[in-house]
């Protein structure tokens, strides 16, 4: 060792005692780069990417074959399928990428080394979250060949495509934030990973179960429902486009009957579905409306993809029971939902952000030093 070099003093004593830490962004960037370096050097990430690529490829290949044999040659269906699968696998991968980021460091003894520097807990969490998000966006990027393929087949509305990808990225970010928050709170990496999976399952499946279980609560018996049906046996009714013209339909073609039956007021329980990641993505995407020409039978019926189907389902649920099944609905095979319907995804995303935010705030308190209370069985160093 050569103690003389120690003499060099870069920071003057006055600066050294100055108040305040690092600019927020530069601290976050330091942590982000530190995390990314480690992630990019670990082989596991590449292996996971490869597996992911193969799995999505298989699913996509199967879907191409099936749609080809069924005769639906529509890029929209395939694209929708890729979006659904990327979201599904993303929800599986993102907790693994994020939920050991903080307590893994704590176990390795490197967290205290960061805590003793000028970095604040917020900077540490933000940097780690950004890195986990970036790593999970890598998976989104790895699915690009398939999304491009589906887009190349045509039939996808560009705006819908862009919003789909954006919402996927947002959902991955939310799950990563949940994972980071849990990992700051829990002492053991295994525990935090399992907990994050549970929370994601709660959003993905728990919301569906809750919606299903709430059915008896929104049930109403003995309600008058009017059904109309066409008597000329035609599936696609009016000869002239009727939606804009609002022309009353020829009464002779249509008859109505009244029944009394049980209905479910799902408009009261639909919000339970809001926080479901699939619902958030599907509901946010502005799917192209069914072209008016379909109604007079001149255009090809457009098959909705999985996500669009989900979107329609949620909107149906939001609209509640159809107490008057009109003649026009009978022609179209479905009722037209009011344009003024409030989208449900902002509520869902809001709930998700609330969850992630609460976890992050609690996690930040766990990282705050000088620490007053530390959980049983853990050491700072």
């Amino acid at each position, binding site marked *: 060792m050569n103690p003389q070099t120690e003499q060099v003093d870069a920071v003057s004593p006055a600066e050294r005692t*100055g108040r305040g830490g690092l600019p927020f962004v530069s601290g976050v960037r330091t942590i982000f780069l530190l995390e990314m370096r480690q992630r990019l050097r670990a082989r596991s990430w590449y292996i996971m990417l490869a597996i992911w690529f193969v799995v999505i490829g298989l699913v996509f290949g199967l879907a191409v074959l099936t749609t080809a044999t069924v005769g639906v040659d529509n890029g929209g269906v395939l694209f929708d399928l890729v979006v659904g699968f990327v979201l599904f696998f993303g929800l599986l991968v993102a907790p693994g990428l994020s939920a050991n980021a903080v307590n893994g460091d704590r176990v390795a003894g490197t967290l*205290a080394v960061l805590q003793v520097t000028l970095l604040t807990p917020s900077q540490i969490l933000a940097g780690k979250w950004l890195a986990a998000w970036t790593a999970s966006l890598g998976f989104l990027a790895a699915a690009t060949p398939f999304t491009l393929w589906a887009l190349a087949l045509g039939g996808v509305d560009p705006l819908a495509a862009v919003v789909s990808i954006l919402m996927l990225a947002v959902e991955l970010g939310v799950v990563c934030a949940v994972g980071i928050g849990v990992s700051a709170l829990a002492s053991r990496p295994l525990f935090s990973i399992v907990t994050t999976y549970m929370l994601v399952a709660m959003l993905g499946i728990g919301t569906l179960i809750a919606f299903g279980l709430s059915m008896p609560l929104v049930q109403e018996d003995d309600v008058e429902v009017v059904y109309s049906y066409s008597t000329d046996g035609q599936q696609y009714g009016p000869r002239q486009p009727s939606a804009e013209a609002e022309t009353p339909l020829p009464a002779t073609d249509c008859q109505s009957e009244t029944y009394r039956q049980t209905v479910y007021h799902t408009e009261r329980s639909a919000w339970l579905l809001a926080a479901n990641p699939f619902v958030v993505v599907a509901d946010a995407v502005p799917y192209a409306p069914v072209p008016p020409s379909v109604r007079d039978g001149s255009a090809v019926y457009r098959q909705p993809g999985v996500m669009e189907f989900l979107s329609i389902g949620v909107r149906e649920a939001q609209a509640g029971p159809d107490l008057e099944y009109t003649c026009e609905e009978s022609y179209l095979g479905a009722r037209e939902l009011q344009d003024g319907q409030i989208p449900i995804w902002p509520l869902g995303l809001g709930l998700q952000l609330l969850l992630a935010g609460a976890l992050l705030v609690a996690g930040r308190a766990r990282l705050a030093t000088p620490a007053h209370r530390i959980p049983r069985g853990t050491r700072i160093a």
Partner: protein
Amino acid sequence: MSSEAGITAAGVVRSFGSVRAIRAIDFEAPPGEVTALIGPNGSGKTTLMLILASLLAPDAGTVRICGVDPLVDPLAVRRMVGWMPDTLGVWDSLTAREILQTLAACYGLAPPERERRAEELLRLVRLEDLAGQPARVLSRGQQQRLSLARALIHDPQVLLLDEPASGLDPGSRVELRSLLRTLAGLGKTIVVSSHVLVELDAIADRAVFVKRGKSVQTQRLVDAGTQRRTYRICAEPIEPLLEALSRHGFGFTSSAQTRTNEVDVVLDGTAHAAWLLRTLVEADVVVSAFAPAGGALEETYMTLEVGAE
């Protein structure tokens, strides 16, 4: 910077649940000196270091690092303090150089400064040849040296080193010693904990002894001259020595640690020892060795160990 440089801690208490890690510690470390923190396993040394490093809040008591309270302004404390933990935590896949540069960034050094400082410290701890290797492959002692470099990265005023010498080879220990003496010479405040008391004898100016979470004694090593200490005397043959000691009224003991031609004698400081040696030589006793039986710190440590039991 305030006029009160160095560290003062008074009446520090800290417990973890039912474990009372620190019951009452008073601790002072003046600038320009190396202060040793000595105590048995589990006596609260690491806990005290964590409190001084602003990572842990004391339950009671006051702590001032260069006049700043870590509870009030932890960031100011962190700018001044370099902390070397007793556990080796390294980012496995990063190289030694990257680790140092990252830490420099965490202390707000500008990019060119980071690189310069990292190279400088790599040279200082002799890791230049391994600078490009992932930290994972470094040996324990090399990781320990990297950890020391990490603590020095922002050129802190105060150094808290928790067992810095563990795992170091003899050559590195000598280097560590001269490094710490140099840093103390620059006016920095240095706190070192270690279980190798002979080592601390050579480095430390003063020592604080803690036991079961209490500070039990503070000793200045320059005071060691007037300390009552055990001397080990070796003579060939031993009989004239025993006779001379009896004649002057000295009690002597031989123990399992002494060889057949050695005895232990308790003396009141260096002047007393010099007088006895002269007397023995003048009495034609063939003295072949005459020295303190152990280090000054070891002596104190053993008396405390026995005394409080």
